[in-house]
C-alpha cells in the first residue's frame, strides 16, 4: 500500500504541473497572435449605433476592466490568481454575466451527458470486443466491419443523422435542447421526464460511437493476448478455458484503461460538438456561442474547464490503473 501511495503522490505532482502548464497555455495561446479582443467587442457594439465618443469611453473602460493595459506577465499573474479564486472573468457577449455563472450552469449538463455515455460505452464496447475475439468465426466477421464503420463516423455526423431520423422523420424525440422551453429546471417529475426525453438521442449517438471504437481496440488486444506464450503454457498445464479467458480479459483490459486515458480528450471534444448538434445546454454549445460572438473570456473559461475535467478524469483513471496493474506500480517505483 505504501508503494501505491508513492505512485499516487508521484502522479498527483505530475498532474499539478500539467495543470499549471495548461493554465499558461490557456492564457498565452489566444494572445499568441496579436489582436485586441476589446476592439472586436466594441466594434460589435458600434453596430448598435452608439456614437464614437461613447465607444471610446467604453473601449477604455473595458481595457481597464480586463486589465489589457498592463504588461502580459502582470496580466498572466492576475489571470492565474483569478483562476485560483474560481473567477473566470466576465462574458463579453452576455455582459455583465460572469463566465463562472454560465459555465456552472452548463457543466452539469455536459457531465450528465458525457460521463455515462463514455463509461457505459467503454464497458459495453470492451465486452463486445472480447466476445468477438473469443468467438471468432461468423460473429466476428459480421461484427468487426460494422464496429469499424460506426467508429469511422465522427460523433457529430452520427448525431446529425440520428437527429434527422428520430427527431424529424419519425418525430419520436425532441429535436434539440436539454428540456422544453416552457419548463423551468427543477427536480419535479415532469421536468425530469422531459429532460430524459431530450437526453436519450444525444446519449445514444455518443454511446454508439464509443462502443464501436472501444470494441475494435479490445478485439485486437484480446486476439493478441490469446496468442501469447502464457496462454499456451497455461493450456499445456491443463488450465481450463474459463480461467484462461479470465487471464486474457484482464490483461487485454489494462491497455484499454490507458487507451481510455489517451483518447479521453478526443472523445470529450467530439462529444462537445455533439452538444452543438442537439443545442444541448452544455459547455460545448456555450463554447460554440462564445466562438461565434468572439467572447474570449467565455471561450477561455470553457477550454479551461474542459482541460481541468479531462485532467481530473485522467488522474482518476491513473488511480484505478495503479490498483489493477501490478506492473505499473513497480515500473513507476523504478523511475
Amino acid at each position: 500500500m505504501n508503494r501505491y501511495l508513492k505512485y499516487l503522490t508521484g502522479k498527483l505532482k505530475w498532474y499539478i504541473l500539467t495543470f499549471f502548464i495548461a493554465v499558461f497555455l490557456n492564457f498565452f495561446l489566444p494572445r499568441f497572435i496579436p489582436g485586441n479582443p476589446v476592439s472586436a467587442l466594441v466594434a460589435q457594439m458600434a453596430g448598435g449605433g452608439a456614437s464614437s465618443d461613447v465607444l471610446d469611453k467604453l473601449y477604455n473602460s473595458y481595457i481597464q476592466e480586463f486589465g489589457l493595459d498592463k504588461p502580459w506577465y502582470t496580466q498572466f499573474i492576475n489571470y492565474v490568481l483569478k483562476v485560483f479564486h474560481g473567477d473566470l472573468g466576465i462574458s463579453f457577449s452576455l455582459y455583465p454575466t460572469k463566465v463562472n455563472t454560465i459555465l456552472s450552469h452548463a457543466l452539469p449538463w455536459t457531465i450528465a451527458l458525457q460521463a455515462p455515455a463514455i463509461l457505459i460505452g467503454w464497458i459495453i464496447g470492451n465486452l463486445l470486443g472480447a466476445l468477438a475475439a473469443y468467438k471468432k468465426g461468423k460473429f466476428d466477421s459480421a461484427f468487426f466491419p460494422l464496429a469499424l464503420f460506426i467508429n469511422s463516423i465522427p460523433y457529430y455526423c452520427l448525431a446529425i443523422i440520428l437527429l434527422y431520423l428520430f427527431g424529424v422523420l419519425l418525430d419520436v424525440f425532441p429535436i434539440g435542447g436539454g428540456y422544453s422551453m416552457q419548463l423551468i429546471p427543477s427536480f419535479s417529475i415532469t421536468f425530469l421526464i422531459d429532460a430524459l426525453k431530450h437526453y436519450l438521442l444525444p446519449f445514444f449517438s455518443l454511446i454508439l460511437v464509443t462502443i464501436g471504437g472501444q470494441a475494435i481496440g479490445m478485439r485486437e488486444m484480446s486476439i493478441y493476448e490469446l496468442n501469447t506464450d502464457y496462454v499456451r503454457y497455461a493450456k499445456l498445464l491443463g488450465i481450463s478455458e474459463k480461467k484462461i479467458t479470465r487471464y486474457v480479459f484482464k490483461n487485454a483490459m489494462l491497455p484499454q484503461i490507458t487507451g481510455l486515458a489517451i483518447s479521453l480528450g478526443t472523445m470529450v471534444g467530439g462529444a462537445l460538438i455533439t452538444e452543438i448538434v442537439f443545442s444541448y445546454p452544455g459547455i460545448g454549445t456555450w463554447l460554440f456561442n462564445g466562438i461565434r460572438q468572439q467572447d474570449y473570456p467565455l471561450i477561455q473559461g470553457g477550454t479551461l474547464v474542459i482541460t481541468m475535467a479531462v485532467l481530473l478524469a485522467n488522474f482518476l483513471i491513473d488511480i484505478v490503473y495503479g490498483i489493477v496493474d501490478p506492473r505499473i506500480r513497480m515500473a513507476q517505483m523504478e523511475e
Partner: protein
Amino acid sequence: MKLLKTLLKSKKFIIGLCVFLLLLFGSLIFTTISSHDPAEMIGFLYEPPSKEHLLGTDNFGRDVLIELIYGMKTSIYVGLLSGIIATFIGTTIGTTAGYLGKTIDNILNSITNLFLVIPSFVILILLSVSLRSRSLTLLAMIIGITSWPWTARAVRAQTSSLKTREHVNMAKLNGEGYVEIVLKEILPYMLSYIFMVFVLQVASGILSEAGLSMLGLGPSNTISLGKMLSWALLYEAVRTGAWWAFIPPALTIAIITFSLLYMNTGMDEVFNPRLRS
C-alpha cells in the same frame, strides 16, 4: 517495393486504398476540368434534389453536389498535409527520444505525455480563435502541430526496442552518428509502422478539420465538408428536413475515414501476423 508487395496481399488495404484514391482523384479531376464555381448561387434556399442539381441546393442556394466535391478535395488536402506534419514531428521526436534515451528522452517524453493529456482540440480552439483569417494550409499546420503526441509515443517505443538490435550496434561501432543511424538503421525498419501511423493521422486530421468547422473555426473563404455540416446546422436544414444538405457531407466524411481505417486494419493484419488467425 517489398513493402508495397506485402501490402497488396491484403484485400482490406486494397479496398481502402481504392476508395480513398477514387475520392481523391475524382475530386481533383473534377475540380480541375469543371468550370463550376462552388460558391455560385444557382437556386433558392434548400431546393430538393432535381435533374439539374442532383443533391439540391444549400442554405445559400448553392449546388450541394458541386460543394461536396470541392469540400472533399479541401478535406483530403487538410488531412494529408496535417498528417504529413504530425507524422514528421512525431517521428522526429519519437526517434530522438527513443534513440538518445536518458535526459533527452525524459524531457521529450514528459512533453509528449503532457500534450497527450491536455486535449489537443482545446489547443486547436485556442490557436484558431485568435486567427483573423484561417487559410486551409494554416489550419492544416495547426492541426498537424497539435496531433503529433501519440505518434511520438508509439515511435519512441518502437525505436527503443529497435536500437538494441545487432545492426544498430554495428553501425555504432563503425562510428556512425545519431542522425545517420536513425535514418539508415532505424527508420527503414519501421517504415511500415510509420506509414500506418500516417494513415491514421490523415484520418484524424480530416476529423479535426470537420470538428473545428462545426465549432465555427473552419477555413475561411473555402468550402469543406465540415463547413457544409456547420451551415446546415446553423440554417436549420435538419429541422426543416433538407436532408440533402447534411446527409451527403456526413456520409462522405464517414466514408473517407472508413477507407483510411480499413487500410490501416489491412496493414495491421499484414505487418502483425499474430492478428491474422
